[in-house]
């Protein structure tokens, strides 16, 4: 359905070139939930914005790669053709429900606008669809909420309204960029449930961007782990969580607090994320990696295949590894 191939996005300023995406490839299949996991600044959001073509260019420059949506390269389309796809075929839910709704329009206006720009229909029909959408995303008494301004809704309700806007035209792919980060835990759980229900009801694909591994475990079918503009590991949720094969993923999972072990300091990954303008040569993770060998400092690691779609960008661990999945 949606295939990102070797995408390179650089932010170019007078003195530096920040390589925000350094050859990222991932795929979202029909009806699948794919999670893109990584720390802040590793390029998750940039890749989402590039798919929709709304990355501000300049300063950003797409230096290579493809974004294939049903076989069509979105990077080749001009603005008009892209506008027909945005919101209609591919929609996006943003991180901050507080600021992603226009403060001067009612919820109803904003949802019906989403329908109006892509489809034709009478005012009454659109209103009916808006009410239906608000019901679908679990907003009580939708007729009255249509007349509300964003500031009159709570954070969770605003995020639900944002989701309703994204779903307005029955998109094939929904990109959710950390939609629960700004919400508290209970609301977060509700929104995640909502996403799961909607996905099943509507047969849409979901690209879910987050840094929260707890969220990933609940929602994802497949996971891509990003680090410093590179996909370092990809695979099914079970493989990634139970059998991580990249030191970064292992570090992330080890850093999660567990219920079984009490006391003691949490595991940390030493060091910090490299500045995208000054990435280390070789493997971007090597300065923080306990397994790093000389080769890691000079050579960019390739993807190592563990079978069943589980790939990891760490040849060092691959050589030491137990037999790949499926093999005896």
């Amino acid at each position, binding site marked *: 359905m949606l295939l990102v191939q070797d995408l390179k996005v650089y932010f170019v300023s007078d003195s530096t070139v920040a390589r925000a995406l350094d050859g990222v490839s991932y795929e979202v299949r029909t009806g699948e939930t794919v999670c893109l996991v990584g720390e802040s600044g590793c390029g998750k959001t940039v890749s989402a*914005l590039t798919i*929709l073509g*709304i990355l501000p260019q*300049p300063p950003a420059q797409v230096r290579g790669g493809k974004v294939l949506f049903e076989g069509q390269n979105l990077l*080749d389309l*001009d*603005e008009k053709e*892209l*506008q*027909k*796809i*945005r*919101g*209609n075929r591919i*929609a*996006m839910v*943003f*991180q*901050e429900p507080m*600021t*992603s*709704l*226009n*403060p*001067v*329009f009612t919820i109803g206006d904003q949802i019906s*606008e*989403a329908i109006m*720009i*892509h489809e034709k229909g009478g005012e009454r029909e659109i209103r009916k669809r808006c009410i239906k959408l608000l019901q679908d995303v679990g907003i009580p008494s939708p007729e009255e909420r249509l007349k*509300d301004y964003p*500031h*009159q*809704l709570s954070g969770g309700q605003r995020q639900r309204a*944002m989701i309703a*806007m*994204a779903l307005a035209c029955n998109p094939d792919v929904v990109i959710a960029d950390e939609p629960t980060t700004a919400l508290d835990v209970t609301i977060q759980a509700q929104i995640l449930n909502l996403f799961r229900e909607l996905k099943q009801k509507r047969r849409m694909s979901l690209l879910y961007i987050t840094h929260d591994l707890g969220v990933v475990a609940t929602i994802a079918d497949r996971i891509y782990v990003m680090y410093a503009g590179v996909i370092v590991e990809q695979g099914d949720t079970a493989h990634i969580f139970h059998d991580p094969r990249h030191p970064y993923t292992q570090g992330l999972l080890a850093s999660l607090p567990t219920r079984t072990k009490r006391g003691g300091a949490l595991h940390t990954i030493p060091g910090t994320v490299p500045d995208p303008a000054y990435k280390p040569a070789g493997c971007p993770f090597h300065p923080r990696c306990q397994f790093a060998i000389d080769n890691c400092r000079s050579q960019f690691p390739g993807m190592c295949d563990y079978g069943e779609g589980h790939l990891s960008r760490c040849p060092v661990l691959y050589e030491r590894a137990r037999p790949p999945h499926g093999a005896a």
Partner: protein
Amino acid sequence: MKTDQKNFVQKKDIEGPSAPQESRWQEFWRLLRRNRLAVAGLVIFVAFFFIALAGLVLTSGTSPVFDPAMVRLQEKLRPPLSAPRVEDLRPEEIPTLGIYLLGTDDLGRDVFSRMLQGAWVSSTVGFVAVGIAVLIGIVMGGIAGYFGQNHVRFNQIFVTIALLAGAGLLMAGIIVLGIVFLVVGITGAALSRQWKRGLLKGRLKPWDKVFFARTISIDTLIMRLVDIMLCFPVFFLILTVVALLPASMYNIMIVIGLTSWMGTTRFVRAELLSLREQDFVTAAKALGVKDWRIIFRHMIPNAMAPVLVSATIGIASAILIEAGLSFLGFGVPPPHATWGNILSDGKRFIFDAPWLTFIPGFAILIVVLAFNLFGEGLRDILNPKLRERY
């Protein structure tokens, strides 16, 4: 053990979940009431509006209720509140109120009727001129604020010049050359579209680099134009233009409008520059909303506060400019009364009939002051940062 009832709150004491109950207008009104001068300004604003409307209805037509053009030479320069000498007048010459409320001028015309008519002229000039200015300002500011980073490319300049030259030559009667330029312009435009797609896909030929060479940014273009316009002494610019054009109310409105859009442009651009980075604009883009719709439907309503304020104050200055022009004799042509030309006519009799200068003078003063006070009150209300003062 008995439960301690005191620790439980009765349900009726708990307030229901409360969304803000106040509507926007209620909030507006509550904040406005704290500023008495602004309320006074608003009252005069509304009163002036109705007086102006009354002025239109009561003084126009073939037999108006108050006839501002009725000349009664035998009744000239009567002071305010004096009764007409009925025995000298024909029935239709007797003022409607039975009294010269604001006196008469040197031709015996009723100043009250003339002031009524002038109120309509002043308010139309004010509103229409500011309307034109705000419209231009919003469009220019919107373009500068939203598309400002884009560069004007050489092909666009080339096509524009070719088309303008073609149209100009055609109008000047040089038909063959004009058509040649037009054809060059249209071909250029068509080729630009073709080439642009190639450019997007990164297939650049060497001569494309010249044809698509970036010149100045759109922001620079518009904002320097604003700077240039601000350098002109506006009043003299208007005087020159009005002296060249046939004198009429519409020309004056248009000229005032065309020379006072710069402030609005700056306000709108500044607002859009900050709005452009807001998430809801990105969200609108992600929904597939077109650029123009984003500017005018999503961003401009968020940027209206400073525009409204500057428009309110702008009306005051447009009224002043119109009065000034009329005073100098370049304004709305004579059969029409305006506050400026009543003042101007009266200045010759300032010692014999001071009301002829003081009445329109005070009217201008009060209206302009009211608009300014209301405009400032509006600014305090619409800008939450300034509210803390009260």
